[in-house]
């Protein structure tokens, strides 16, 4: 039996906004290298959960541990792809990527950064300012930042959002690659039938409460039963 702490542990995790609970009493444990698909209707608490796991939001009660540490102390191992792309709109794609790499303590060469841009489908767009980029291009650049950091625990909040069909395929390939490299993955999406075969476990949230937990492959049928 391994003494390693789970990659992610949430205990009685709750977050309220005023009198409404966005997430209430969630217990979660995810071993290193495992993956979890989080689903639920709008306002179910998916984004809140991912933000709590990334420590970009403070819980009202309960606690989170990432690799046995408080998430704020484990940020070097965490990567979050959120609705916001965390980009500087006055800088170019390449400058944004370089700034992120340098500030993260990873001074990458221009060729390496160019290769990352090519990987996410932004080849030849390095000199384009973010202000002139479409929402899909910004999302792709956010993926490049995630790939540049290459964290152990990856949190993806609606990764298919704003992307075109080729972007969907890119996300599928990325999830498969991250899983094969032993990264711990938590992903929320509304495209459950598409994502379910790619991930191992599933969690259904309704009104901030966990209402179903099981294999990700069974999540689509669980959703049609419980959300009918």
């Amino acid at each position, binding site marked *: 039996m391994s003494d390693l702490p789970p990659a992610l542990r949430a205990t009685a995790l709750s977050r309220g906004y005023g009198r409404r609970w966005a997430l209430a009493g969630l217990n979660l444990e995810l071993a290193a290298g495992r993956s979890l698909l989080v689903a639920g209707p709008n306002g179910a608490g998916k984004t809140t959960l991912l933000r709590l796991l*990334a*420590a*970009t*939001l*403070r819980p009202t009660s309960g606690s989170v541990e990432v690799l046995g540490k408080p998430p*704020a102390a484990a*940020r*070097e191992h*965490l*990567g*979050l792809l*959120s609705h*916001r*792309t*965390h*980009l*500087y*709109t*006055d*800088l170019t794609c390449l*400058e944004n990527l370089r*700034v*992120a790499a*340098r*500030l*993260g*303590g990873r001074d990458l060469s221009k060729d390496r950064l160019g290769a990352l841009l090519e990987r996410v489908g932004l080849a030849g767009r390095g000199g384009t*300012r*973010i202000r002139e980029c479409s929402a899909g291009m*910004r999302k792709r650049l956010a993926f490049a*930042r995630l790939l540049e*950091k290459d964290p152990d625990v990856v949190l993806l909040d609606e990764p298919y959002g704003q992307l075109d069909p080729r972007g969907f395929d890119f996300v599928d390939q990325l999830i498969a690659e991250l899983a094969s490299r032993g990264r711990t993955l938590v992903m929320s999406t509304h495209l459950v039938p598409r994502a379910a075969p790619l991930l191992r476990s599933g969690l259904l949230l309704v009104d901030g409460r966990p209402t179903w937990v099981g294999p990700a492959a069974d999540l689509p049928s669980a959703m049609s039963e419980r959300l009918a």
Partner: protein
Amino acid sequence: MIRPALGVLRKDLKLDLASPGRLAAVVLFSVVTLLLFSFAVGPDTSSLQRNTAGYLWLALTLSSTLALGESFRLEVEDDALEGLLLLPVPPAAIFYGKATANLLFLLALAALLVPLSFGLYGASVRGSFLELAVIIALGTAGLAGPGTLYSAMTARARGSDVMLPLLLFPLVIPVLIASVKATSLVLLGDPMGDRGAWFALVGCFDLVYWTLCGLLFGKVVDA
């Protein structure tokens, strides 16, 4: 801590250079403010000369709220600040990097406003230019430190443009008074030899502000 702070400073300077129009607006505002003081007082040259230090520091203080507010607007526009924390950049490094960038901008602004105010108000330096440079550096540091903290606090607030000066001005009044007094003594002469005490007072405020704000910044931006 020093390396990421320098990285944040470099990033902020790059952002300033990437969009010079934004800073030009602040510079123009400060120049217009100086002009307005001269129009308000009228052709009373001795009054303008006597109060040059006050007008200069008021123009710098008013302009600083625009520059400081702008500095954090860029960070919250697409939640870039959250991205910095996730990289991870320590909150204190973000504070010291951004506060230094704001200080450099205010120093550059002062370098423009000082000769302009001398020209407009007919003022001259009885002390030394080095002393003038030192008090301007100390005074602008007293604006940039707490200003950076408060602009982080108010950046996401509704009516942040109004909130920032409302919170900042009461806090920087001691620095403002001491900076005006010290600058006046450098410009008009210091027969009693008081300026050293005023310099020290501003320096002490800087030390307290930059230490406390660096410690508190994490509480402001983290989650």
